[in-house]
């Protein structure tokens, strides 16, 4: 199969993402200093995967929100494909947040899970988007499923500010972390740690862009197959070539 310009861009994006990941791994494990024992010591390095994974999930669900609005307004399948692809990746990364968080919490808090505001709202968000993916399989008509899912994709974004600000609005066990106004406050991070953190954030963002490009390409391919199948069904069995020639002659 011939390589298109889009394929080349995808290869470059993948190369950039994996290079950034390699750099961030070095920074996380060899440049960032070990945290205090009260924060988990070596285990605190999970933070460099946990927070960027949460950021990617936020980004993915914001794209679901925008693409869902665009789909409901235009009825263009490309927007639905973008929303569906982004939701799938968002669910994956939020699942990683929900897994890595308790691994850190277990030795530090002495428990795997607390039904506090941050953890509960994150779980509710994850379940909302799992529902979004599930609902697409409930109906056989893709356009109907797309429109139904788009409504969930729009309403689902309400969860994101609740998750993000839950640590400020309610008393929670979860660390509050830095704020946009003061990125160093509450974090205990110095220059090496911030460098590792932002490198990891950039690497995860590039990885997300690459995964999203591949997933939307897959969606386009699925649409083409559906179109071809539909054409084959509506056209019915073809007439023999000889008969066709005869028709043309007459």
């Amino acid at each position, binding site marked *: 199969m011939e390589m298109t310009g889009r394929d080349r861009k995808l290869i470059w994006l993948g190369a950039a993402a994996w290079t950034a990941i390699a750099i961030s791994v070095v920074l996380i494990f060899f440049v960032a200093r070990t945290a205090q024992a009260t924060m988990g010591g070596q285990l605190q390095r999970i933070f460099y995967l946990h927070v960027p994974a949460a950021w990617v999930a936020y980004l993915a669900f914001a794209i679901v929100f925008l693409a869902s609005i665009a789909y409901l307004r235009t009825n263009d399948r490309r927007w639905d494909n973008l929303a569906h692809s982004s939701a799938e990746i968002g669910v994956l990364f939020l699942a990683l947040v929900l897994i890595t968080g308790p691994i850190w919490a277990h030795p530090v808090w002495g428990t795997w899970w607390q039904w506090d505001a941050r953890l509960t709202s994150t779980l509710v968000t994850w379940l909302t988007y799992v529902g979004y993916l599930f609902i697409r399989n409930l109906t056989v008509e893709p356009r109907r499923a797309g429109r139904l899912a788009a409504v969930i994709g729009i309403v689902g974004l309400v969860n994101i500010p609740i998750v993000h600000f839950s640590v400020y609005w309610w008393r929670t066990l979860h660390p509050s972390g830095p704020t946009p106004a003061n990125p160093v406050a509450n974090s205990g991070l110095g220059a090496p740690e911030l460098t590792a953190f932002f490198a990891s954030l950039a690497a995860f963002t590039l990885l997300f862009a690459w995964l999203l490009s591949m997933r939307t390409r897959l969606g386009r391919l699925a649409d083409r197959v559906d179109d071809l199948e539909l054409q084959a069904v509506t056209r019915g069995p*073809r007439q023999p070539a000889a008969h066709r020639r005869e028709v043309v002659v007459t």
Partner: protein
Amino acid sequence: MSNLAWLFVAVMIVWIAIGAYLVSLSFRQRKLEARMAEISSSEDTA
């Protein structure tokens, strides 16, 4: 289990999950390409 061992587990889970997702994308793509080839060949032979 030590903190370092838990860190290793967490890192492995992250990269195995992302790797598994990539494999699933590749699997789904191959399946669609095979279906497309099947439709094209059945149209050619008809």
